[in-house]
């Protein structure tokens, strides 16, 4: 790739990541959410891989990092669902909003997302899905970029 693209790509990737974070955090009241925001963050990593190459990319996702974030996303989602099952009797019950008045206020305050909307656990689910999608889509592109064609071998 050309030098102009190499100068531009990494700062643009940082802005792309921030936009992805904003999409994840606004997912409960605006279009977007965990998957869309995670895909936007992954697009930043993919842009760097395409422009700089897998070995020279400034965003280096190691195997350990990918497995930790992927596990964190899946485990967090399931644990929040199990919290609903444990406290209210329903898997993925919105323990942060408690629309059916099943829970004591202490439990609701723990799971309540701190903003003016009464979204409960939905932003937390968006965050976990976003992290999981970010590393999942990036891992696919990293795996594809490491394949070598038969002519190169």
């Amino acid at each position, binding site marked *: 790739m050309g030098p102009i693209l190499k100068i531009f790509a990494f700062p643009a990737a940082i802005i792309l990541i921030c936009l992805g974070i904003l999409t994840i955090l606004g997912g409960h009241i605006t279009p977007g959410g965990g998957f869309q925001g995670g895909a936007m963050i992954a697009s930043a990593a993919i842009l760097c891989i395409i422009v700089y190459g897998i070995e*020279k990319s*400034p965003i280096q996702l190691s195997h350990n990092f990918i497995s930790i974030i992927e596990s964190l996303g899946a485990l967090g989602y399931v644990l929040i669902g199990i919290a609903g099952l444990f406290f209210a009797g329903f898997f993925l019950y919105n323990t942060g909003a408690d629309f059916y008045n099943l829970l004591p206020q202490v439990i609701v305050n723990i799971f309540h997302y701190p903003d003016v909307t009464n979204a409960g656990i939905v932003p937390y689910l968006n965050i976990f899905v976003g992290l999981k999608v970010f590393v999942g889509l990036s891992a696919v592109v990293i795996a594809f970029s490491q394949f070598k064609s038969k002519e190169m071998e």
Partner: protein
Amino acid sequence: MINFGPIFFGFIIGLLVGLSMKNNPKTEISLTSGSFVVITIVAIVCAWQLGPFPYYTDFPIATGFLFGAIGLIFGKLLVSKA
């Protein structure tokens, strides 16, 4: 009322992503600390232009965007020092 959700979780997600930006000796781009100051200023301008997204009224800027950028740079500094 200040919405702490996007401030706190924007920083956390930015930090997690920033931890993957290690100093790669093979890379062809070398950003100085001045470059990151410029990126921060651009992020503040972007956050200002986005406005109080989504429908918040506590600050005139998109706090999730701004704290995401701060978390990114903080995460990169953390892994660069290590």
